[in-house]
């Protein structure tokens, strides 16, 4: 991003309310420089979409935000990622604790091979909830708009659900432990249009209580659901601003070329 664009995005995106931010973030996988000097702020209670062609580093960036990259051998990260002002890569930060506040939804629905009830109860139990978990299970299933479909079969295998239902179960599972931020890594890419529409409605509703960062390769989806959009290319942040402005008056010609479908 040029300095002029950086100044512009600073004016457009309210950084005072940032739930998450990155500053000069660099990520290497071995010798490949996957993320190059990315500085971004994710405003509170809003949806920020990260778009860009395959391999541009969107998912890598997302996985830096709750330290899911820690598990990848040979990864090296420099720069700063701040969650509510605190550097999450500081030595005294426990990534396990961090992930309890920053939940994640994955590209492919990944319910545990257990019952629908157990899928949600697991997160509650490991986070110290005791006693009757059913009310909390019900609440998170309602939040994820899944309760009416599964209320009579909570003890059935989660794997018997359809793809869209499985993804909503994963969202319910993440919501049950009351995170602060939800990171979504192309949550609809494995779903059909109907299921996608339901998840998108759900995401829009969740904005009232959560800060959401969503990676998507679907530009219509970014335009439909997000408040802010970041466009990435080859590991660099090209442009960041309110979604409406990015999609109507992109400042960078590469952004324009991408959103008009000339590459990617």
């Amino acid at each position, binding site marked *: 991003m040029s300095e002029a664009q950086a100044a512009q995005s600073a004016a457009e995106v309210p950084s005072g309310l940032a739930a998450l931010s990155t500053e000069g973030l660099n990520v290497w996988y071995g010798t490949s420089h996957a993320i190059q000097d990315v500085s971004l702020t994710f405003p509170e209670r809003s949806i920020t979409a990260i778009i860009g062609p395959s391999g541009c580093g969107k998912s890598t960036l997302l996985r830096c935000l*709750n330290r899911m990259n820690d598990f990848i051998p040979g990864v090296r990260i420099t720069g700063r990622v701040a969650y509510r002002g605190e550097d999450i890569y500081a030595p005294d930060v426990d990534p396990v604790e961090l*992930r309890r506040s920053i939940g994640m939804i994955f590209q492919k629905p990944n319910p545990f091979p257990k019952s629908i009830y157990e899928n949600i109860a*697991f997160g509650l139990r490991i986070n110290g909830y005791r006693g009757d978990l059913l009310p909390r299970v019900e609440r998170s299933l309602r939040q994820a708009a899944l309760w009416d479909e599964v209320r009579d079969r909570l*003890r059935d295998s989660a794997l018997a659900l359809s793809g869209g239902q499985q993804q909503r179960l994963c969202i319910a599972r993440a919501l049950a432990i009351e995170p602060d931020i939800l990171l979504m890594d192309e949550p609809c890419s494995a779903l059909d249009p109907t299921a996608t529409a339901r998840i998108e409605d759900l995401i829009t509703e969740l904005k009232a209580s959560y800060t959401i960062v969503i990676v998507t390769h679907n530009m219509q989806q970014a335009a439909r659901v997000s408040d802010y959009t970041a466009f990435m290319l080859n590991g660099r942040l090209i442009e960041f601003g309110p979604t409406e402005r990015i999609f109507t008056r992109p400042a960078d010609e590469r952004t324009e070329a991408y959103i008009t479908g000339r590459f990617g």
Partner: protein
Amino acid sequence: MRAPGGPGMRRRRRAAAVALQALALGAVVVGLGVLVVLLFDVLRDGAGTLTWTFLDSFPSRRWQQAGFKAAIFGSVYLLVLVAVISFPLGVGAAVYLEEYARRSAMTRFVEINIANLAAVPSIVYGLLGLGVFVRTLGLGRSLLAGALTMSLLILPVIITAAREAIRAVPASIREGAYALGASRWQVVRHHVLPMALPGILTGTILALSRAIGETAPLIAIGALTYVAFVPESVFDPFTAMPIQIYNWVSRPQQGFHAIAASGILVLLVVMLGFNALAIVLRARMQRRSQW
């Protein structure tokens, strides 16, 4: 679309397919056939002498009075001890290598060694057991020394099987659990182990089947062949079924050969019994771990 090549090529290809199928069928027939012939041979020789007296007597110089009791108890005790020692060690090592250890020259060195240890002849383990457990640790020719030696022998097999099973648990399950704020141990305890357990148990069953039939290491550590009592503690001397069978087979009298065949039948039944038990256990755990 027509396949390239004329009718001649197609005929050749069909002939090759038929030949391959015949070869595969032949392999199955030969493998199973030899096993069936062996089993019938043993049954013919040993069924007549397989009596309650045989099962309930201690060894004797006269084959009519010689029995298998000490060997049966010795083998069963040995197998239980080996399972108790090798299962937690093997699974623990596999979990450490797969879930905790960082990739380094050290872990690679350990991995190569485990793979090589699985190929070391069992007599070498016997000599190691003799040196370490029997002599240095002063356990003598005890059940415990035998069980420790056997555990060493089958540990590489259990570790390798457990690692395969653990590696087969999809990364997406681990990620899902980590993203909920699970610690490494919680992920292992609640997701990886339950999902890997059927595979781990299959590997363990195979390894234990090998242990119950092994003779060489027990001979090397000096397990006795004339034991006229049932071991009462892990420090008692013992004998085991394969040693007793080996001893009887090497005698000149025909009668001992017959009771050796009876012994083989008992060994097979006990082994199949343990395998069946493990399979039932596995099926039950699988059901429970699912929901």
